[in-house]
């Protein structure tokens, strides 16, 4: 409250670092010196009132704008200027004057608080120059790299553009080719179909004849087997020796039941047996086949096969996500093998059936089929090529549609991924695609967001990337990530954090955001006060 606040001597450093003393009230920047003239009444800078000059810096706030107390804490909205010779000058809120905390590196804010401040301006200035220099170097090199990136991107873009054009031209041809081949295929398939049907029909008829023949042979064979006493008749008792024919499945074939099977007769001859045969043929066990060996177990090599298979194709250590499809196939293979291994028991029957395989096509039919097959193959191949072409075009067009920056300098990040490993997690940034997090020691991956948009400030939206709609949070939003881009020589994720639950922040350096170095000498004197 005493008037020691009106100290007027201050040190100011003009360029070239020669200190010159310029007198003005405490806390006033040089640019405003003219408003504070000791010989005249002071008018508040907002013009609201005029006060005697001895009320400037008298530790009582007279001006609404705080301009009468630049060097005291009296005004709630005042600001104090420190020169900070050797470093950069700055304004601090006047509430920080004499609050016991050293704010100005030249210690001028703590002139009456008892706080022990040291002048650190020179040190700070030196450090800042070092940092600025380093930054300048990085920026310079980064900017050069950026130029290359732009070159490459432009080249790449042009290439892609022309590639797309070429491909679209090719595609047109392919389209035509596919259509032509489709016609060829359809033309070839019609006669093929007819010939095949003919062949099939003939075979069906032949098969029926053969089946009948076989049945008769079996019946005759059975009759002989059953006719134990070879008297030309099968008797009830002879039939009873085949318990499997028991119609009520109680384990014994009684006399009555056997008679029933034999149509009430005591015995039958070969011709009468024809009417018995259909009743017993499904159940009948041939005596000669009784000791048929049990079906062979799955061959051991077949069981092992999938394991061997798996060993031969181990999981790729990295890039799991990209290889995922392949893995899935592997797994499917495994199961298929497994399934195949199980039904081998049925194999004998199958082969039995196979004996009745369709006879080969006659030469004419086969010729038709071969022709049609070739037409089909040709068509499918062409169609596949067309699909692939389409995919390629779409991919390139998708890539071309991204906003890779004003000069396409971010193009090189496309389809790349960058990782950062922390104590707990591996973070992965795939620019223009997604951000993910995977526990270091096992556990599944969490999606921290898929590419949303550039979301930097209006004057440079390319400083921030936003990835949105990641895995949902309990009672919270879906995870999202903001990627902050800073200039650097290398393209690298430098840090990640989760400032707010489920909202991640990733710092990422890339030459692509390096600005053209303004040709400034990074000395503090150029940061002139306002």
């Amino acid at each position, binding site marked *: *409250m005493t008037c020691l606040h009106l100290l007027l001597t201050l040190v100011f450093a003009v360029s070239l670092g020669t200190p010159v003393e310029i007198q003005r009230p405490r806390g006033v920047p040089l640019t405003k010196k003219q408003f504070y003239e000791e010989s005249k009444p002071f008018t508040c800078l907002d013009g609201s009132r005029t006060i005697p000059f001895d009320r400037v810096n*008298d*530790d*009582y706030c007279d001006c609404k704008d705080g301009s009468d107390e630049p060097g005291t*804490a*009296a005004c*709630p909205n005042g600001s104090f200027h420190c020169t900070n010779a050797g470093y950069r000058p700055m304004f601090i*809120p006047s*509430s*920080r004057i004499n*609050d*016991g*905390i050293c704010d100005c590196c030249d210690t001028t804010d703590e002139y009456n*608080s008892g706080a022990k401040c040291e002048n650190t301006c020179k040190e700070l200035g030196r450090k800042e120059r070092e940092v600025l220099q380093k930054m300048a170097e990085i920026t310079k090199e980064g900017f050069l790299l950026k130029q290359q990136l732009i070159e490459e991107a432009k080249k790449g873009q042009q290439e892609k553009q022309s590639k797309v054009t070429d491909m679209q031209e090719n595609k047109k041809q392919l389209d035509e080719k596919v259509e032509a081949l489709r016609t060829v295929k359809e033309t070839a398939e019609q006669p093929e179909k007819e010939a095949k049907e003919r062949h099939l029909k003939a075979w069906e008829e032949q098969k029926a004849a053969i089946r009948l023949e076989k049945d008769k042979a079996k019946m005759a064979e059975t009759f002989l087997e059953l006719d134990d006493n070879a008297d030309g008749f099968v008797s009830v008792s002879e039939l009873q020796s085949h318990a499997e024919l028991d119609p009520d499945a109680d384990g014994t074939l009684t006399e009555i039941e056997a008679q029933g099977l034999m149509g009430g007769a005591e015995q039958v001859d070969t011709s009468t047996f024809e009417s018995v045969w259909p009743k017993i043929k499904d159940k009948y066990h041939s005596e000669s086949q009784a000791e048929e060996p049990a079906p062979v177990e799955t061959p051991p090599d077949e069981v092992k096969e999938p394991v061997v298979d798996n060993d031969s194709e181990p999981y790729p250590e990295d890039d799991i996500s990209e290889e995922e499809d392949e893995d899935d196939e592997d797994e499917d293979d495994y199961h298929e093998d497994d399934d195949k291994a199980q039904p081998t028991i049925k194999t004998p029957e199958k082969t039995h059936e196979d004996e009745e395989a369709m006879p080969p096509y006659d030469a004419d039919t086969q010729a038709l089929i071969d022709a049609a097959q070739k037409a089909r193959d040709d068509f499918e191949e062409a169609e596949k090529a067309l699909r692939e072409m389409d995919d390629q075009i779409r991919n390139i067009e998708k890539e071309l549609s991204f906003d890779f920056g004003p000069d396409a300098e971010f193009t090189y990040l496309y389809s790349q991924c960058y990782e950062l490993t922390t*104590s707990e997690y591996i973070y992965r940034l795939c620019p223009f695609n997604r951000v993910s*997090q995977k*526990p270091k020691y096992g*556990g*599944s991956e*969490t999606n921290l967001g898929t590419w949303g948009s550039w979301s930097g400030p209006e004057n440079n939206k390319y400083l921030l990337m936003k990835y949105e709609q990641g*895995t949902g*949070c*309990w*009672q*919270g*939003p879906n995870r999202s990530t903001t990627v902050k881009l800073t200039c650097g020589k290398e393209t690298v994720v430098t840090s990640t*954090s*989760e*400032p*707010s*639950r*489920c*909202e991640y922040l990733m710092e990422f350096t890339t030459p692509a955001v390096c600005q053209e170095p303004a040709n400034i000498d990074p000395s503090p004197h150029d940061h002139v006060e306002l």
Partner: protein
Amino acid sequence: MSAMFEGNALSAMQTSHCHTSLNNYRMGLLSVVCVSLFFSSTFAVDRGNFKTCDQSAFCKRQRALKPGQSPYRALLETLELSDSRLTLQLINDNNKVHLLLELYRLQGNMTRVKINELKPLKPRFEVPDVLIAEPPTEPLSVLSKDDNGVVLSLGAENQRLIVSARPFRLDIMEGPEVLLSLNSRGLLAFEHLRLHKDTQAQADGAEVKESVDGDQQQDEGKKDEDGESEKEEDGLWEETFKSHTDTKPNGPTSISLDFSLPGVEHVYGIPEHADDLKLKTTDGGDPYRLYNLDVFQYELYNPMALYGSIPVMLAHNTQRTMGIFWLNAAETWVDISSNTAGKTVFGKMLDFVQGSSEKPQTDVRWISESGIIDVFIMLGPKPSKVFSQYASLTGTQSFPPLASLGYHQCRWNYNDQEDVKSVDQGFDQHDIPYDFIWLDIEHADGKRYFTWDPHKFPQPKEMLQGLMDKRRKMVSIVDPHIRVDSGYKIHNEITSKDFYVKNKDGKNYEGWCWPGNSGYPDFTKPEMRAWWASMFAYDQYEGSMENLFTWNDMNEPSVFNGPEVTMHKDALHGKWEHRDIHNIYGLYVQMATAEGQIQRSGGVERPFVLTRAFFAGSQRYGAVWTGDNAAEWDHLKISIPMCLSLGLVGVSFCGADVGGFFKNPSTELLVRWYQTGAYQPFFRAHAHLDTTRREPWLFGPENTALIREVIRQRYALLPYWYQLFYQAHKTGMPVMRPLWVDYPKDTATFTIDDEFLIGSDLLVHPVTEEGSRGVTAYLPGAEEVWYDVHTFQKHNGAQNLYIPVTLSSIPVFQRGGSIIPRKDRVRRSSTCMENDPYTLYVALSPKKFAEGELYIDDGHSFNYDTKKEFIHRSLTFANNALTSSNLCPDCNFLTSSWIEKVLILGASKPSKVLLKMDGKETPVDFEFDTSMSVLTLRKPGMNAGADWTLLLQ
């Protein structure tokens, strides 16, 4: 932070992609974290986790008992009267069990009534450590005695205590008025200790029923009579709630007593409930419950128990304020009904009272599960007298360090040291003051309190030093559940000293809490508390420094897999069951922690400890907050009655999480909450782990400015807040008060709980409605005028004033007749403002009078107490002179603060202003604003500790 829920927090720790719901924790399924899928996350308490009266066997038994003829009879021949007390036996005519009644007349117009079994099988629990001393007594004398009763003199003002013999009842009278009656409805019920039914004849079971019901009206009726009594049998010796069985080795032990308050329509207190200030009648619903519980996402406007319990009720009418303090730490239920029934005969002296027309009456009934009946009846008659009476029993609000009255920035969790640093810098960048930044459970290494996470907080001292350099402070959380981990020093020491609470089988009690399997230190043991306190020594709590303070959360105690999320009632604290001590556990935790902070400074520094659980007497140890609220408008509204209720029963240092703990507040709600919180005693913003960040500058420059402005208003008023806390500490007067405390005869104030007073001189009506364009504030006092503190516009009292509001408005009025000192130079932290000058706001009454006080000390030590190092001044404006005079001439404290400005509201323009000091007169510059009649004295400049007079001529 906290609350139960979060499956999230823990499960996230274990697996990143699987969330466990609260329900699982409650069922103790922590170990199967991944099994559960998403349970519905509806936002409300799961009521099924907490008992209703019907589900609490003793409450159900007791409540089944209806008013009527009491089976208790006073045996007048056993009356013994000594200087300090009267004893008398009571007999239950149904079961012949004798009780011993003790009556004390206490100094300061209080009566204490104790009822215990005459010869209990073993001692019944009497709550220690709540009363600050054995209350001094005054002699009782017998005025008259006959077969029907005894009339005793209570000394002052013709006060008498009438003991009626048959049935037993007590009436306290003043002149012809009955102030309060005990057992007038015959609901005294005392379940005496007995041997288990296995060893006793069946008749005892019947007797039990009698002892509860008193054989009165069997309202339960005929239906299921057998089943009913069978069920009651079950509830007597064993009780199961959800999957938890309470073994009840002592059988039924509950107690109950009724109180009638003739002429009373308004009762208050018995926190903690998320309900209106004025207590509601409980007919047809559950009674108010007092049982410290960690209630996840609590609901508003119901009588469910919450984190703390203070069994003190205030009764108020235009003539008198009284208090009932039911000193019992067991689960307690309080029924309130309001009618004129229950009038019975009580002696000739009262006959003519009966003749009077129907009077409003409030009947109250207290029911506790165990312990004894120990009731303090505080007879007022003025509100301030009731506060001092209660303070004389349980002590006053601790005098907090000045900095703790500033703004607190909290979040579950500030992630790491870098985060703390950048938040700290954020405040400076946005020029917003704050004093404390808080660290929740994630700061500790694996939830091992007293440790630091080595990755996130590798250099705690560096961090604390950084804050100290800014003259700021930090709070770290220290919860009472201790991780069972043989690599954890705290656990090992507690184990080796055998300090853990035991389960019914005598083994260490273990339950689930944040760290997983946890032990619970037995804070009821003085040796345990002494050891705990010693853990706060700087060399014990590694990484701690003198600017690190403490937060005790989860001290109900919270046990995720325990019954009702707390400890089993049959757990053992030495020879007492947890049942007996439950509600005082949290008090002991805070007590031991505060003691630790005092000790670490060699007894010099005042502690600061925040607690969630509390009991009568907790005010002596620090601050309380209203637990895990939500970012909803109704939660903002309820913060007012919740803190008002606490203030009425001693706990002045109360606040609610600004912004709401659960969920994300809208920007409007957040701004309104800052505006409200800035005018409530404990001012802390806090947010749940799953919420988005909400530091004050994250909502655009306009909202940052609004928040900055109101936090600055808080800091400017810190001298007033500090002085009020000093007053609360000295006298027990609440800091934040309902209007009726200062306007006890104005019935319009009796139910107001959307506005409040800070001290007597500031009236605050926060805006708590979304999209509000105006509020109607009641300005009390027919004789009063009130000045809008922002515009200085004057309004008359005893009116409802409509105040248009914008988002920047927080309606606050200064009472005409008051002087409030402010420090208008708001800085980064309160400590930075230590030596700053004062501005005096003198608001004149219609009679051109005003008075106020100024209190100054070092802001943090006990020297004010031990060395009388403080300044206490009386400021009086009368006869056109403002005078500062010394209220403590033998005090000594030097301040460099001075008076930079005096604003006199409601003044007329003087021709001249003179400062008279040290025998000299010097002219003082001034300005006069005619539009608002504000006289501003420019820089009078006297030291704040000096004698002076300013004369207006």
